[in-house]
């Protein structure tokens, strides 16, 4: 076994030191009735070559942007990842380390996370960001919990245009916490209906959660929503499912958001069938001691040099136990590192230009699809890099026809919005060339016949 170093001679010597006759005896405390009396029924050990052959077979069964023209978004985005990202996160000092509990030998992780926190603050405009959470959906749930803690209120409004996974995750987290979850309808712009919202907001409301952009790719009017939430003392939570948009859109803080959460996958993480991704969580200073998750802070060492440590741990479960602000006790360290590297590589100009390319390509695709006879764009609100298309037949059937031509043309919306059986969500990124978009349009036109 190449991962287990003990030789038989080692085992003999160690048993002698321990003073037992066999390894078996070391398990004396496990009652016989609880002992498994047979080998595990698992396939036999594979050599490295066999393993790669088997996994290669499975991997080749999956469609990717290398095998198909891909227009899938909906919370996970096909962006280019510079080679330097993977090179750096593959440094074993980063990826084989544990949580940086011993700061003197963890300054690499700690400084990188501190930089990540800063980058998230810069992007969102918020005062403080934590060291990351599992993903956008769970970060959104944590934001709702924090808002209820901070406001001591229990009514939570969720936009129905918010990503369905985010809504579902909030519901799971709140399942047994006696909260009132209310969904707020959207209007023909694809944005949350502000008049409905105004009617549902009251002094029992802890929070309103809006997507920014929302699940339809539409940019919600945060500023207007903020006027309403501020008036009744509720927290406005902006949930960003496509953070590349922040390269171009006004930062949520500037528009009045109180908490900004979101999904960081777009920043250098592979699609990987949905994970591991990167939840980010940013808030205003007022909420500092209510934050869930880890925080890295600056301090000094015994010689007065700058250094970084995990801090404000008194919020956390290993100290506070049942009074902790969350049960989370890890972060997505390596994913946050990847995001920091990605953002550092793109930098000020690159992030903007990449966002502008996404915007331009999506606009080109929208215009071209809108011009097709059997298609329309049901929502009129401004979009970034994805948008809803309505056809004349069931989207599921249409997209299957498009798929046969090597195109993953979009996501049918019917699973989450039963009345939208002819609608689907199309995403266009900097990875889609004009010819890909043209091919999609041709396939849609053909498929609709």
């Amino acid at each position, binding site marked *: *076994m190449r991962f287990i*170093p*003990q030789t038989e001679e*080692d*085992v003999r010597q160690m048993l002698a030191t*321990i*003073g037992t006759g066999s390894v078996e005896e*070391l*398990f004396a405390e496990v009652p016989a009735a*609880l002992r498994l009396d047979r*080998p*595990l029924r698992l*396939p*036999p050990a*594979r050599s490295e070559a066999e393993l790669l052959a*088997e996994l290669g077979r*499975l*991997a080749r*069964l*999956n469609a990717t942007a290398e095998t198909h023209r891909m227009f*899938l978004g*909906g*919370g996970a985005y096909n962006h280019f990842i510079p080679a330097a990202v993977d090179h750096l996160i593959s*440094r*074993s*000092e980063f*990826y*084989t380390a*544990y*949580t940086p509990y011993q700061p003197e030998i963890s*300054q690499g*992780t700690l400084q990188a996370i501190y930089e990540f926190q800063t980058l998230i603050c*810069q992007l969102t405009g918020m005062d403080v960001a934590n060291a990351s959470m*599992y993903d956008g959906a*769970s970060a959104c749930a944590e934001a709702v919990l924090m808002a209820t803690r901070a406001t001591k209120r229990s009514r939570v409004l969720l936009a129905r245009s918010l990503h369905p*996974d985010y809504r579902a*995750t909030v519901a*799971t987290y709140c*399942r047994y916490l006696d909260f009132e979850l209310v969904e707020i309808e959207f209007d023909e712009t694809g944005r949350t209906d502000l008049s409905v919202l105004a009617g549902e907001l009251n002094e029992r409301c802890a929070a309103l959660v809006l997507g920014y952009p929302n699940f339809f790719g539409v940019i919600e009017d945060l500023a207007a929503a903020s006027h309403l939430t501020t008036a009744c003392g509720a927290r406005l939570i902006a949930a960003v499912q496509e953070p590349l948009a*922040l390269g171009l*859109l006004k930062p949520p803080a*500037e528009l009045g958001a109180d908490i900004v959460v979101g999904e960081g996958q777009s920043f250098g993480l592979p*699609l*990987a*069938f*949905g*994970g591991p991704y990167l939840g980010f969580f940013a808030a205003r200073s007022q909420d500092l001691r209510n934050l869930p998750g880890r925080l890295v802070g600056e301090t000094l060492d*015994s010689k007065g040099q700058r250094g970084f440590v995990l*801090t*404000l741990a*008194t919020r956390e*479960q*290993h100290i506070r136990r049942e009074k902790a602000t969350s049960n*989370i006790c890890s972060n997505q*360290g390596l994913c946050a590192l990847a995001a920091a590297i990605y953002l*550092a590589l793109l930098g000020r100009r690159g992030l903007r230009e990449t966002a502008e390319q996404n915007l331009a390509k*999506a606009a*080109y695709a929208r215009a071209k699809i809108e011009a097709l006879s059997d298609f329309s764009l049901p929502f009129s609100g401004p979009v970034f890099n994805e948008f809803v298309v309505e056809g004349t037949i069931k989207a599921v059937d249409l997209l299957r026809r498009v798929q046969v031509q090597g195109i*993953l043309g979009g996501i049918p919306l019917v*699973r989450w919005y039963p009345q939208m059986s002819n609608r689907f969500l199309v995403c266009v990124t900097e990875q889609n060339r004009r010819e890909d978009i043209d091919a999609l349009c041709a396939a849609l036109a053909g498929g609709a016949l």
Partner: protein
Amino acid sequence: LNEKLLFEHSDKGRKGYSLPALDVPPAHLPAELVREDIRGFPELSELDVVRHFTRLSTWNYGIDTGFYPLGSCTMKYNPKVNEVACRLPGFAGVHPHTPEELSQGALELMFQLQEDLAEISGFPAVTLQPGAGAHGELAGMLMIRAWHEARGNRRTKVLIPDTAHGTNPATATLCGYQVVSVASDGVLRAAAVAELMDEEVAALMVTNPNTLGLFESEIAEICRIVHDRGGLVYCDGANLNALMGISRPGDAGIDVMHFNLHKTFATPHGGGGPGAGPVGVTAELAPFLPVPVVVRHADGFRLDFDAPHSIGTMKGFYGHFGVLVRAFAYIRSMGPEGLRRATDMAVLNANYVRARLEGVFHLPYATRSLHEVVFSDRRLGGGCRTLDLAKRLIDYGFHPPTVYFPLVVAGAIMIEPTESESLESLDEFCEAMLAVAREAEEQPELLKQAPQCTRLGRLDETRAARQPRLRWEKT
């Protein structure tokens, strides 16, 4: 050498990226939606960025750097081939919204992993969705509550032994439960549980082997007691590395258990994550699993969202797939004999370290250890505490053990060597521990001023908490 922050390096106009030329007309958003430039955002060349993070990495300590006996964390070797496997284009590049017929490889892998974990643990049903151990705990405790609610029997309390991880009580609270602590004498006694177990107790949360590295030898009896009074038993699976092929929690009467793939199944810890926290449950609890689970049909594998009793979804999509690939690769590489051998050698290694150190270090519990051993600082000389020992070990080139946990041992020193370490490594570590113990007697200042061999000296954690500076700002 020092390394500035990214933001301090930046120079207006530098860039480290490249985009293809735009092949469609530019587009514009309404001006009121568009932000200003991001003040202070980095501007660096590719080399600047590479050098920055390469330097940062050298201030970190990983398993590949040296021995990492962090108790309760199972810092075993992370095989390199697994890193290759999860980066195969067909795994790294598959979008979660890909139609099922075009993601059969991903679904088959997940299905097989569900089956493997079921066999290893003795639980018939498994969800791969939770993103970490604590997330798995939350899913598991929500299922327990859902089960009670489905029976119209709300219940209000959860019993948790005093040796438990802090996430256990935090999770119970998040499920709306009140936490009742159970005292143990190292091992949890059936009698102690019986005394506290009543009709208001929804569940007992145990860890087995517990955080003292001791097998909960009364677990079967405890499960009976809890079940008899209508409760369920949750097992924190953090220490499964001590049991593979030896004993299956599902066979002992446990109802729900989470796995830490990043501990037992060798996926890298990544400096804090991502991990993965699948959960196994009994057949009775299976209807409550989060959605979706992967099921096999005649025509292939599918994501099943149709589960009316499900607690819902724990996060976006289906789990930390990239982590699942690595764990699957590990299980296939090991085979049944390999997993059993891993457990055997993990336990042998822990007992060897115990045998070599117990004459010098205070051992609060004399019960036979499994995969880890907990000492205390009681016998440490020169007024030195556990923290001093830990920092001094850094100077010897070792990552310190887990310290001050479990809370039931004052000044705990919790050592988990894992099976990955050779006798040679263990000996070097034991020599260092013994040398530090001698230094504590003879030159305690060596411990108190440690570490000396790192770029930074001991860091002021109090200052960080009192004057929080959580982000860089231009000064």
